[in-house]
């Protein structure tokens, strides 16, 4: 008997005329590792909520078709039975933690299940040991790092000993190392304990290869499903972006066998391609800037009131035309760096100069803000007007700038015209991000600072944003963004800065920095290491690598 059997499932959210899910038919077997991929708004999260019993139980709405869990209609199962069997971890750890301390958080679900005290004590001890949380037993949840919070959210669900674990983009807010750590844990749960895992992810390079089966969704429907290899082959043929870079490269290279891991890719690379003379992209001369930098930071230190030195001796210059990506673990000081550049935080020591002037002296605060645009991590912090258009006009009004067609121009550029009169709070995550960005870009700042702008965006939205930013740089502005998305940095940034514990540990052209790094490198970069150094993206690999012999290319 399959674990889940879904027949002809269609679902409408309350007050919605468009179905979030349409004609879904699928079977999920016990012990399976299922990856659900697709663009924003494709119905991934809605499907996860159906499987977790949250739809229609929590959300309401209209539902058609049937969902069977171990042969029983899920509608007939009571809330406690579903919670006992199915655990779900959401995207934002901050919003799913309820109690103030770690131990109480884990106990919360067990108390709700009405378990006896001895049983609760045993489960809490076990799960804390398994996830390495014992040291943090009495710690306040607000004090935990992003990675620890997500681990705690997982622990709170695992303590309930569900047979199915659903993860809705659990690593989207984690740095690459913490994300890897988290996914390894999930893999162990599936392999060692036999737990069924249903994972929803946007960043497929992290998890494509660990899934048994992949379901690709689009417009509320299942577009394709199969093993990673089948999906990779199909997506490569159709030109779909929802495959990892290694698979995309081999697909575009015209090979029939599509590897999905770096290891397999490296083996195939050695069999099918000639080693490159190497260092192709590394040989590109660095840009020599003769003009005055837009922004200069000299020996900048910044400490928070609790004494934590978030910036230590920062010396940086940013020039017009640059797209700079700042990488580093959570807490490395990336956001503090941007806020200091935006003039929102005043350095304890050192100077930040915008076109040669310092805030408050030669450059007024207002002039500084109009030259430097800042987009924070959370786009919702920008949105309060009734329409998207008003949101843009609000910024212009604050700076005393007359619109003069700039609102239309920015809306065109960011494809927001269709939402001009929509309430920004009614838009999806990716669309909100674009509105927030538009409300910053509308003053045409010379320096645009973006704090994790790609968070929650799918491949298409990221590509769209990358093009907008590159175009903006070509017009003579400079963009500095923080990101955990190394693939995005490799594709669009001209320069990469790496931070560690408040210090700049590396600063240079993108190819140089990312090729030298082991953990902060792209999938293609890791695959080509030692074979064709300096290559970071599938497009670069296609341009540089030549087949070992023409006969060895399988098709094209």
């Amino acid at each position, binding site marked *: 008997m399959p674990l889940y059997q879904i027949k002809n499932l269609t679902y409408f959210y309350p007050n919605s005329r468009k179905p979030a899910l349409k004609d879904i038919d699928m079977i999920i077997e016990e012990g399976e590792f299922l990856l659900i991929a697709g663009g924003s708004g494709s119905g991934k999260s809605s499907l996860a909520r159906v499987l977790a019993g949250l739809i229609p139980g*929590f959300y309401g709405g209209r539902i058609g078709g049937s969902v069977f869990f171990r042969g029983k209609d899920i509608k007939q199962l009571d*809330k406690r039975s579903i919670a006992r069997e199915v655990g779900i971890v959401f995207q934002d750890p901050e919003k799913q933690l309820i109690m103030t301390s770690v131990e109480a958080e884990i106990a919360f679900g067990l*108390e709700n299940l009405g378990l006896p005290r001895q049983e609760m004590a045993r489960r809490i001890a076990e799960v804390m040991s398994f996830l390495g949380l014992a040291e943090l037993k009495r710690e306040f949840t607000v004090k935990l790092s992003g990675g620890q919070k997500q681990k705690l959210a997982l622990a709170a669900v695992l303590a309930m000993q569900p047979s199915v674990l659903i993860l809705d983009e659990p690593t989207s807010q984690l740095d690459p190392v913490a994300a890897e750590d988290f996914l390894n844990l999930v893999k162990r749960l599936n392999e060692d304990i036999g737990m069924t895992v249903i994972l929803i992810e946007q960043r497929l390079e992290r998890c494509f290869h660990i899934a048994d089966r992949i379901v690709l969704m689009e417009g509320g429907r299942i577009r394709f499903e199969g093993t990673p290899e089948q999906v990779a082959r199909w997506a490569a043929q159709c030109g779909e972006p929802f495959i990892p870079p290694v698979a995309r490269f081999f697909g575009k290279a015209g090979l029939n066998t599509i590897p999905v891991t770096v290891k397999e890719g490296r083996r195939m690379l050695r069999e099918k391609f000639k080693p490159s003379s190497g260092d192709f992209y590394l040989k590109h001369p660095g840009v020599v800037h003769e003009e005055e930098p837009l922004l200069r930071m000299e020996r900048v230190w910044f400490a928070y009131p609790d004494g934590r030195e978030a910036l230590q001796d920062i010396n940086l210059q940013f020039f017009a035309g640059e797209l700079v990506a700042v990488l580093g673990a959570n807490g490395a000081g990336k956001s503090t760096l941007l806020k200091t550049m935006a003039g929102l935080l005043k350095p304890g020591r050192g100077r930040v100069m915008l076109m040669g002037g310092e805030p408050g002296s030669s450059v007024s605060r207002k002039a500084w803000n109009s030259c430097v645009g800042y987009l924070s991590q959370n786009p919702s912090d920008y949105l309060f007007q009734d329409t998207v258009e008003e949101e843009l006009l609000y910024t212009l009004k*604050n700076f005393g700038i007359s619109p003069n067609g700039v609102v239309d121009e920015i809306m065109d550029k960011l494809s927001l015209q269709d939402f001009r009169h929509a309430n920004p709070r009614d838009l999806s995550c990716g669309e909100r991000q674009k509105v927030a960005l538009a409300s910053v870009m509308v003053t045409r700042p010379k320096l645009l600072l973006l704090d994790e702008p790609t968070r929650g965006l799918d491949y298409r939205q990221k590509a769209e944003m990358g093009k907008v930013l590159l175009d903006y740089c070509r017009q003579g502005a400079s963009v500095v963004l923080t990101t955990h998305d190394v693939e995005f940095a490799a594709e669009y940034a001209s320069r990469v800065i790496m931070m560690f514990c408040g210090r700049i540990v590396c600063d240079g052209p993108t190819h140089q920095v990312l090729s030298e790094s082991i953990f902060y490198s792209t999938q293609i970069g890791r695959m080509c290491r030692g074979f064709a150094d300096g290559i970071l993206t599938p497009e670069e690999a296609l341009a540089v690598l030549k087949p070992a012999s023409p006969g060895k290319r399988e098709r094209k």
Partner: protein
Amino acid sequence: MLDRFFYREKGLFLQSLHPLSALTYIAVLLVLALVFNHPLYLLGLLAVTVTAIKALDGIDAWKTFLRVSLGAAFVIVIVNAITVRAGETIIWHGPYIPVFGRLNVSLEAVCYGADMGLRLLDIMSIFCLYNFMIHPDRILDLLSRFSFKSALVLSLAARMFPTMVSRLDSIKEVQAARGVDFNAGTLKEKMGKYVVLMKILLLTSMEDSMETAEAMYARAFGSGKRSHYVRDAWRPRDSVCLTASLLAMGVAMYGWTKGLGTFSFYPRLAYLIDGLTGIVLLFAVIFLLSFPLILSWGWHNCPFIKSKI
């Protein structure tokens, strides 16, 4: 910066007490500070409280409470001296003020004001001690046995408060970056800018609360009868501290019914030490309230005591 005023886990003895015994100890200190008005008793309570704060490594933060209390005490002394006319020992004849009459300051009124200031310092120090000694979650845990929903609301509020403060800071930064100058304009204009901040915070919090509710639903909240997870073990130290606290309360109440622990300020100041019984009672109460401190010393310095409690 504000972290030092709140609970931080330091693995200290007083933090290891069961919330029931810790809360009883704090409650006894508070009740006695409200019941007694004898300056020596209030000083005794202050000495015990400050020693406990020191044992919790919180003297630096307490100094801020001290400064605030001394400022408030000064105001109390001035206001009391000017407005109260019950004292007979006039130490300053002031000018005649219409409606109020002649402004005379008496020694009794000044002393009463100082005594009230001392009581204020006592109470503030006890709250400071509470902050350092008891993990708020453990209090909520205790409360949840009697009223789970109220405890949950308090827990959510306690968890959300720092998050909302940090979110408010972030929204303010965003607004500043969008050209809003919070220091410019008239009072009405400034208020308008802050209204926008609150509007964004409210909208965002409402959206976030849906996600929190969803996470609670997914973890079987409201699915039926709950059980209660007991996190805190009851140790011999808790029995000793609870007994000592209750005995201190009993002794103090006995003395209070006999008129001890109270001091008469008007019309003339009474004797500070009026007989041996009052002093014996004071020492008895202070000794009993010092039990947790003695155990704390033993726990940190004597392996034998540590192993037994």
